[in-house]
């Protein structure tokens, strides 16, 4: 755990805090009343505009971060807060300790998951010099809680970028997709880095990839999930990678009910084996929908279909296939 140049420890007075807020954010941002916390154990007690001292650095807490899931409205994550470092004025995302255990459903499969602040802190140290992950550091508050202080990423999500592209699929695939595939390969290599170091990401989803505008790089976020794995330690991560490449190839999820409504000719060609192994309303065999998708790329998608009889064991196997597919996409598109 490293935290940069923290000043010597001392108790901050309310006036000192007010002066810092005025200096960093302007006098109009000084709250009329606020509390100063050093123990974040009961995070519901930390209100908007309260100040939390972490590793001798005061942070002004503001809004809860939110996370949208599967078309539902954004849900507030009460343990994840936007904050300002009152020493340097930088915006941070601060994750407080929340030992949540829950069952994640993957089609018919139920996976026991839990949040592990320790895991995320360990990975933050591991990826401190890696451009494709969110960066930050961890520290213990006065109550011994493992708090993670993360750099705020200015930018938007990869999946949002893809869905904003207005061109039809043919134009998208020939003009935009080659570059997107390069980004994806870079992101798979980043996951390989984690796996090579004995760590899983734990929650690989398309909305966990952010484009960092300042550094012009895509970054994985949120790696505090863990789960009891079976024989395949990285199977769940690979499953996530499969869903993302399928989404990117299709310029969104290609849903069976939509094909039934809008493209009955293609719907009639589909068999059960063409569908996603976990989400049986999504098409995995996209070459049936978009025949110009190269075979080599489609074969990767088929590893994540109900018809698959071999699965990727690790990212190396997937990266070998991706290299072949990238070459074929280049030949097809000239990009």
């Amino acid at each position, binding site marked *: 755990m490293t935290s940069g140049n923290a000043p010597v420890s001392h108790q901050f007075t309310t006036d000192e805090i007010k002066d810092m807020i005025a200096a960093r954010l302007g006098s109009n941002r000084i709250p009329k009343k606020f509390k100063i916390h050093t123990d974040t154990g009961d995070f519901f007690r930390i209100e908007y505009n309260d100040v939390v001292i972490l590793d001798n650095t005061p942070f002004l807490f503001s809004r809860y971060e939110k996370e949208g899931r599967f078309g539902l409205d954004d849900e507030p994550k009460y343990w994840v807060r936007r904050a300002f470092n009152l020493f340097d004025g930088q915006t941070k995302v601060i994750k407080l300790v929340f030992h949540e255990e829950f069952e994640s459903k993957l089609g018919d499969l139920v996976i026991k998951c839990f949040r*592990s602040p320790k895991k995320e802190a360990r990975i933050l140290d591991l990826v401190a010099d890696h451009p494709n992950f969110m960066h930050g550091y961890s520290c213990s508050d006065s109550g011994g809680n493992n708090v993670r202080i993360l750099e705020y990423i200015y930018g938007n999500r990869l999946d949002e970028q893809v869905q904003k592209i207005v061109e039809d699929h043919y134009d998208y695939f020939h003009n935009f997709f080659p570059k997107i595939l390069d980004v994806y390969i870079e992101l798979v290599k980043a996951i390989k880095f984690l796996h090579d170091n004995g760590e899983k990401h734990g929650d690989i989803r398309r909305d966990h990839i952010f484009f960092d505008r300042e550094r012009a790089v895509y970054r994985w976020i949120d790696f505090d999930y863990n789960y*009891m794995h079976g*024989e*395949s330690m990285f199977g769940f991560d690979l*499953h996530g990678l499969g869903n993302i490449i399928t989404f990117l190839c299709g310029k969104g999820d290609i849903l069976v009910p939509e094909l039934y409504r809008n493209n009955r000719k293609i719907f009639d060609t589909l068999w059960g084996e063409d569908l996603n*192994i976990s989400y049986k309303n999504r098409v995995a065999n996209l070459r049936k929908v978009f025949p110009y998708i190269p075979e080599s790329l489609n074969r990767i998608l088929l590893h994540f279909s109900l018809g*698959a009889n071999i*699965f990727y*064991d690790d990212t190396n196997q997937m990266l070998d296939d991706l290299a072949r597919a990238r070459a074929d996409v280049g030949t097809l598109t000239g990009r």
Partner: protein
Amino acid sequence: MSGSTAGDLAKRDTERHILLAVDESDNSRRAVMYVADFFSDYRDVYVHVLSIIQEPSEDFFKTDEERSSWLAEKQASVEGKLAEYNDILLGSGFREDQVSSRVSVRRCTSIGQAILDEQKSLRCCIVVVGRRGISHSEEFVFGSTSNKILHNASHCAVMVVE
């Protein structure tokens, strides 16, 4: 429980050693019964019953004490099961010196690979495992130990008991 030790390795190439990889499941019990049924009459067949406990990551527990106590409980429970399996094998006619058993607690990313590492170091010519019969998507996400062994075993036979 007694049996041949690692010191006998030179002899092993002329003997027949079976690695019987088990856990606490019913399919492991079936694998034990199968070995008892088929091999107990052979006087030169030695059975090494092995159970691997994957050392859990610190992430799964709030404190180190919780982790140590989980591990101690798990080990005691597996050892109890191995004693049962030992009784089944001896009851079927194996001599005491033909059967050994061991619990191995280790950090590993794959139990299947850990079993194959043991097979190599013990120079066993057959690996016997049970199979759970998991669904397609379960195998995709969690993997299958018996499939891992089937695909990666070399210089030995593999028996998968269903």
